[in-house]
Each structure stands twice: as structure tokens, then as C-alpha cells.
């Protein structure tokens, strides 16, 4: 009996555990990336241990790839040495970790996943208990095949109704974060429930789980179902260890009516400073960025392409597919051609300018509308620059005028 988080952890441990217990749990997938692997390797070396289960390890190059600086290149050399020395079979260089792990079938429902990246929570979209940790915790997970954690209490997000036209999962999560607050789910699992949640496609589920960490959450979770199985089919993932909530006791339940939502934007520098776009229409924008683990999937690029087809962007606009698979699919569907013809810079898959290191860094005082998950001061460049978070539709609409725009008039 328990929440989805309790059920997944109980199934993995072979005994019933409840919120508040500290447990040592076997880990099915351990992930680190180009910026965190070097520290992980140092932790393991300090421990004097090797990776216990190399086949469970995944190292992904996504943060600064291809390397933009000598320092980044050197870090990647160290990460490659680690992978080769430890015999880790998975070195992925074809996109953002949270996108390519499921694409390569490396995540299955019921898994416990530990990643040296805070947005590892994205993988909860597949019914896995996935959480972000620091490099030392990840080093321990590599060395022992286990991790310690406190079984989290759960905030349930009950979803009802259907999205109006021009409104989607990103608008919903910006509203959820606004209402819950940037620390309102600290140490908690965020479980999306209700008939409207079950109807959401995997991409939307990933967007919703991805931003659980922006409320302080330890995990974002959807129960695995037929859509999950279909998405993972043919990708060689392990058999699912399917768990569902049974008579769950949630810490609290917050209900959201999708019909009542409208396009949202989170104002720099707070993720929970969400406001309806219509209140800020006309705000000048210097750059638009569509991509990231939050919104760099095919459906996101498609939404942008629909709005930009046959038009020209008025400000510099960068689009970064989340993975090579997404890139190729968008290429074949004609979306990339549409974007390029509209004047968009389409960059190679990865985290792109989300970390302010390459492919669209902001100058002093500049303002960006982006589909990212974080708008912290200076994240994309100069400390005086501003980041406004929005949906791909709002970002594309804003690119057309160079001002924050409500996409509903354009769809």
C-alpha cells in the first residue's frame, strides 16, 4: 500500500517501505555527464573502488558538446578515460541525457535511477524513481551499486480536463510551480494523477516530471501504462517492474483544471514567478531559445515550425533538438527546413545555451524568452541578462515580433 514512490521503492527492496524511512536501495542506472564525470571519477579513486556494475553505468556528453573550450575538451578526455578504464559500455554523445537514456532503452518502469544532474527527475515520466544527486553520491552508487535515500512523502498533482488550443504541458507546469512554489515540494515526490494525466503523451510527461526539481522535488512520477510500453517498444529496455500507487496517502493533493489554463511565462529570476503571457505582451525580447530537456522534443519543434512556417523571426532565435533521434525526425518531417528558412539557428543536439556556455550566450541587459526550466540570474550569460520561461508556442510567437507574444492569436 502506498504512493507510487513508495511502491517503486518497496518493489525494488522486496519489502514495504513508507515515507520518512531512510533506506539503502539498489540502483539500476547510474548516470553522469561531461561536467560531473570528472568529479565522480575522483570520488571513486579516493574510495579506491571500481565501478561495481559497469553495465548499469551511463556517461553522456551533453552539457558542452562538441567542446567549446579547451577546459571542456579536457574534461571530456577525463570522462572518456573513466568510461574506458571502468569498462562502462554506454558513452552517449547524441543528445541530452534525460532524452537519450530512454531512447536507448536504458530506463525501464520501476527502475531506480541516480544521476549527477538535477533534471534526472525527468525519467519519472517512464515510471522510474529517478533522482538527481551530486558527484560523490553518484561515485558511491557506481562503487556499491546502491544509494541511500529517505523515502519521500508525495505531493499529488491531480489533472482534470483538456488543454485549450495553444496551451500545453509547459504552461501547466509553470502554473504548478507558481502555485506550489520553488521549494513547495522540497524532499517530496511529485506524482501526477487523474484521468487527464493518464491521457498525456510521454513528451508532456517528461516536461512535467522535469520541472519537479524546480519545486524542490526529489522525483517527478507518472505511473507506467500502455503509452509507456509503446514508447519503449523496440528500444531493448529491460522488462518493466511495473508499480502503481495503491491506496496512497498523499501529503497533499493539488488539483489543476487544464481547460482553465492559458499561456504562461515565468519572470526572471524566479521559476515560480509565473504570470499569464497576456499580462506582459509586448515586452521587448533580444533572443529566443527553443530546446532543452524540458522542451527540445519533436512535438516542441513541430509547434515552433507551425508558427514560423512561411514567416521570418525578428530576433536571433536558436533551436536545439534534445537528441539526434529528435533531430533526424524533425529533419525528415520538414520542421528543421521550416525553422532554418524562418531564420532560426538550428544547433547540434545537447543542452545548448541553457548553461550560458555556448550557442547563444546573453550579453549585458539582454532578455531571452526560452523553453528552459530555469531562469536564474546570469544562467545564460551576463549576470544582468534576464530569462523568461515559456512554452515552445510562446517562444516561437515571440520570435516573430521580437516581443513577448501570446501564441493563441497565431495558432
Amino acid at each position, binding site marked *: 500500500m502506498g504512493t507510487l514512490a513508495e511502491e517503486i521503492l518497496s518493489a525494488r527492496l522486496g519489502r514495504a517501505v513508507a515515507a520518512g524511512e531512510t533506506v539503502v536501495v539498489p540502483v539500476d542506472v547510474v548516470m553522469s555527464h561531461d561536467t560531473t564525470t570528472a568529479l565522480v571519477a575522483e570520488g571513486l579513486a579516493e574510495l579506491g573502488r571500481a565501478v561495481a556494475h559497469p553495465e548499469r553505468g551511463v556517461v553522456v556528453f551533453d552539457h558542452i558538446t562538441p567542446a567549446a573550450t579547451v577546459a571542456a575538451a579536457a574534461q571530456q578526455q577525463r570522462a572518456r578515460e573513466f568510461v574506458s578504464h571502468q569498462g562502462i559500455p554506454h558513452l552517449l554523445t547524441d543528445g541530452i541525457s534525460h532524452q537519450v537514456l530512454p531512447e536507448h532503452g536504458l530506463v525501464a518502469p520501476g527502475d531506480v535511477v541516480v544521476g549527477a544532474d538535477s533534471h534526472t527527475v525527468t525519467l519519472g515520466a517512464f515510471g522510474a524513481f529517478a533522482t538527481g*544527486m551530486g558527484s*560523490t553520491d553518484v561515485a558511491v552508487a557506481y562503487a556499491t551499486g546502491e544509494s541511500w535515500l529517505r523515502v519521500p512523502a508525495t505531493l499529488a498533482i491531480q489533472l482534470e480536463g483538456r488543454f485549450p488550443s495553444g496551451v500545453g504541458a509547459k504552461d501547466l507546469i509553470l502554473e504548478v510551480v507558481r502555485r506550489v512554489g520553488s521549494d513547495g515540494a522540497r524532499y517530496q515526490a511529485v506524482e501526477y494523477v487523474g484521468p487527464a494525466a493518464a491521457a498525456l503523451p510521454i513528451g508532456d510527461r517528461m516536461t512535467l516530471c522535469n520541472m519537479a526539481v524546480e519545486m524542490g522535488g526529489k522525483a517527478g512520477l507518472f505511473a507506467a501504462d500502455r503509452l509507456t510500453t509503446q514508447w519503449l517498444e523496440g528500444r531493448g529496455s529491460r522488462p518493466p517492474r511495473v508499480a502503481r500507487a495503491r491506496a496512497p496517502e498523499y501529503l497533499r493533493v493539488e488539483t489543476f483544471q487544464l481547460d482553465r489554463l492559458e499561456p504562461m511565462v515565468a519572470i526572471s529570476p524566479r521559476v515560480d514567478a509565473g504570470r499569464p503571457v497576456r499580462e506582459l505582451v509586448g515586452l521587448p525580447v533580444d533572443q529566443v531559445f527553443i530546446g532543452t530537456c524540458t522542451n527540445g522534443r519533436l512535438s516542441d519543434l513541430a509547434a515552433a515550425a507551425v508558427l514560423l512556417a512561411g514567416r521570418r523571426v525578428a530576433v536571433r532565435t536558436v533551436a536545439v533538438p534534445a537528441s539526434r533521434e529528435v533531430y533526424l525526425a524533425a529533419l525528415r518531417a520538414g520542421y528543421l527546413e521550416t525553422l532554418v528558412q524562418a531564420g532560426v539557428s538550428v544547433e547540434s543536439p545537447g543542452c545548448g545555451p541553457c548553461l550560458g*556556455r555556448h550557442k547563444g550566450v546573453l550579453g549585458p541587459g539582454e532578455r531571452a524568452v526560452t523553453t528552459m526550466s*530555469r531562469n536564474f540570474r546570469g544562467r545564460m550569460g551576463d549576470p544582468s541578462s534576464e530569462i523568461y520561461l515559456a512554452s515552445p508556442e510562446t517562444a516561437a510567437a515571440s520570435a516573430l515580433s521580437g516581443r513577448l507574444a501570446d501564441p493563441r492569436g497565431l495558432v
Partner: protein
Amino acid sequence: MARAWRFGDFVNTDQIIPGRYNVTTSSAELGRACFIEHRPEYAAQVRPGDLIVAGEDFGCGSSREHAVIAILASGVTAVLAPSFARIFYRNAINRGLAVLESPGAGAVQEGSEIELDVARGRVIDHTANREIVARPLPLFAQRIARHGGVLELVRVHGSLNGVCLPACGSAPDGPVPLSPGRMP
């Protein structure tokens, strides 16, 4: 005596160490870049043993452990705040940075002289002449802190079982020493 560096609510890891500066594992480099944009004078003026006193949800945002390394390398060995973000809190415990949850942290003024006894959870604000209550570390964190970090705990016990077994919830088995902090 530690001197307090005051920070506000929701200090995130991008502010502690911007992403552009964490392409290294050198603690010296990370220490020099600590708060480099958020508070540019910090790295040059902070003294060994100083204390960070912050508001709610300190360390929110990315999982970068570079943030904890940067703070330790800057000479600060403890952070006092009403609440901490989850991953930062783990990273701090794992590396031996003392993180003390204290609802009264907000009353501490910039530059105050603070006496800190991590083991007893005692914090004395000598400038304001009052004691501030800090919550003792949770048991699992105490077990890790007693080893000076999680790596040493794993080395001693051979596994993570030392965090939790025989059973979490039992009484702590000794005082927690001030941990020296672990540097790469």
C-alpha cells in the same frame, strides 16, 4: 571566531558557482570563483573559518557539487539557514560542509561574530549577544558526518549500510566531531 556573510533567500547553485566556472575540479579555482558574479568581493575578502548565513532553500537548482567544493575552498566550513535545497544538503553532508538548519538564521546581521559548535548544534551570535537554535543533524547525516563524509563511511563499512543499519531511528552513538571537509 567566525564572521557571518549574509545572503538572502533562494541562493541557487548558479549564484554560488556559475556554470561557466565549473569546468574544473580544482578546488583552488572553484574557491576563487565562489559567488563571483553574485557577490564579487566575497572570494577576496572571506577569511578561513567564516560562516555563511542565508535564507530559505539555500543551494537550490543544479546538482553541481562544485558549489560545495567552492564554498569549502573559500574557507567557509559551515552554512546556517532556515532550510536547504535537497541535493545541496546531501552534497554538503557528503563532503563535510556543516549545514545547520536554523529558523532563527534570519536574525543574524552581516559581519556578526559567531561562535559555532557544530557537534552540539550551538550557535552564539556574539554581536547580538544571543544564542541561535540550530536543529541537530538527522541521524543518517550524523553517521556520515562522523566519518567526515560519505566516502570514508563507505570505506570503513565496505558499503552504505553504515548510513542506516542496524536501524535508522536509533539513538546516535556519540558526539559528532567538527569535520574538516573533503577537498578534491
